[in-house]
């Protein structure tokens, strides 16, 4: 009986973890990626399951002269997602909270730099027994070379 119980428990853990990941992939691919248009997605998958209050940071080098769009999206059942773009000294260059939790930010750099995209799932205003959690995706896109050169 114990074996059956443990097997069922293990199955549930594996099954639901896999489901969360699969949902995350589909969320990133089918919903968040659309936020990048007309920018070309760089093809790198950055998505994870986060709970309210939880934070994640993406470290990435952005290159001079390239026009970028950062898209940060969260599952619809999650509270708003705050994202900040920081330099390596952690000075804030952009905060989407000041822009009504905008999902995207477009920018261009004069010289190549490593930047940090810091994400935090805000805590829900209403108190509940459960901590909300869901998929959060951070995608980076850039403009096609001809578009950039013309501009």
């Amino acid at each position: 009986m114990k074996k059956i119980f443990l097997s069922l428990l293990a199955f549930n853990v594996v099954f639901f973890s896999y489901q969360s990941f699969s949902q995350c992939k589909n969320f990133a691919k089918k919903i968040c990626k659309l936020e990048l248009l007309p920018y070309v997605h760089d093809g790198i998958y950055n998505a994870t399951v986060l709970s309210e209050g939880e934070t994640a940071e993406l470290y990435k080098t952005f290159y001079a002269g390239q026009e970028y769009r950062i898209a940060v999206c969260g599952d619809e059942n999650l509270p708003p997602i705050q994202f900040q773009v920081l330099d390596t000294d952690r000075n804030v260059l952009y905060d989407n909270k000041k822009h009504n939790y905008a999902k995207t930010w477009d920018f261009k750099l004069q010289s190549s730099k490593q930047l940090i995209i810091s994400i935090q799932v805000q805590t829900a205003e209403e108190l509940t027994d459960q901590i909300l959690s869901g998929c959060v995706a951070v995608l980076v896109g850039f403009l096609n070379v001809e578009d950039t050169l013309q501009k």
Partner: protein
Amino acid sequence: MLRNLLNFSILVFVVLILYSCKGTSSDENQLLDSTTIADQVNKAKQIIYGIPSPVETAMLMKRAGAKYSQEFLNPIENLGNYSSTLSMALNLGVYSADLSFSSMFDQSQASIKYLSACKKLADDLGILNAIDKSLITRMENNINNRDSVMEIISESFMNTNSFLKENDRGEIAAIILTGGWIEGLYIACQIVKNTSYNQELMERIADQRLSLNTLISLLNDYKNDANVKQVIPMLEKLKVIFDKIQSKSSKLEVVEKDGKTYISSTSEIVFPKEVFDELEKVTSEIRSNIIK
């Protein structure tokens, strides 16, 4: 058996009773519980390393004035040489970079061949359906539309690295990215060597020191993996040379101009030719060991 079942049922009953008691606790307790858990969760921080994808590297090279040359790419004929997990993963990265490079320069036949090579290695690595037949057909049907081609390539990368991360094989995803990064660096070095030290391209190569640090951090997350153990020394060799590049830059400032946002700063990079030559030599050695 029956007795065990009875014991288990009692256990479930007790757990349910305890759980329902917790559910009817006072609002004050609920608030305390929520705050405590939220505080704990708040401390958790996940770190994600954003590595430049081969598409991005190819675009940077084209913007810097690079010209296409087939001889810089890994010949398709080498495909049969790769049978270990390490060589397949590294060369999936290499061929991904070659695919991006040939597509960026509208080399349609080469692009289809490299996509097929990527499919073979992805299949052999057990990365299911990352590059399926429909993706290749879409590529063939849209081969003259570069935006569509780049979109298809980006989709194939996303399928590959999401599959690996979801299946707890992040170390393979990291090795593939390393292979792609080294191939991009190799191609860029060859172009510079053959075009009288193109200044803009040299600057983009120097910028790779920033990505190299991120790449090493990513691989260090899997430093106990036998394959990753073989890859890290390659990058450390390159880091020794990249560390000879001197740079200084001013504080970043965000400037709004004509409805666009610019992150402005001045930056000065000292990248002597001797350092470039050393980098080119070591990169070529590492790359020829990967593709042999």
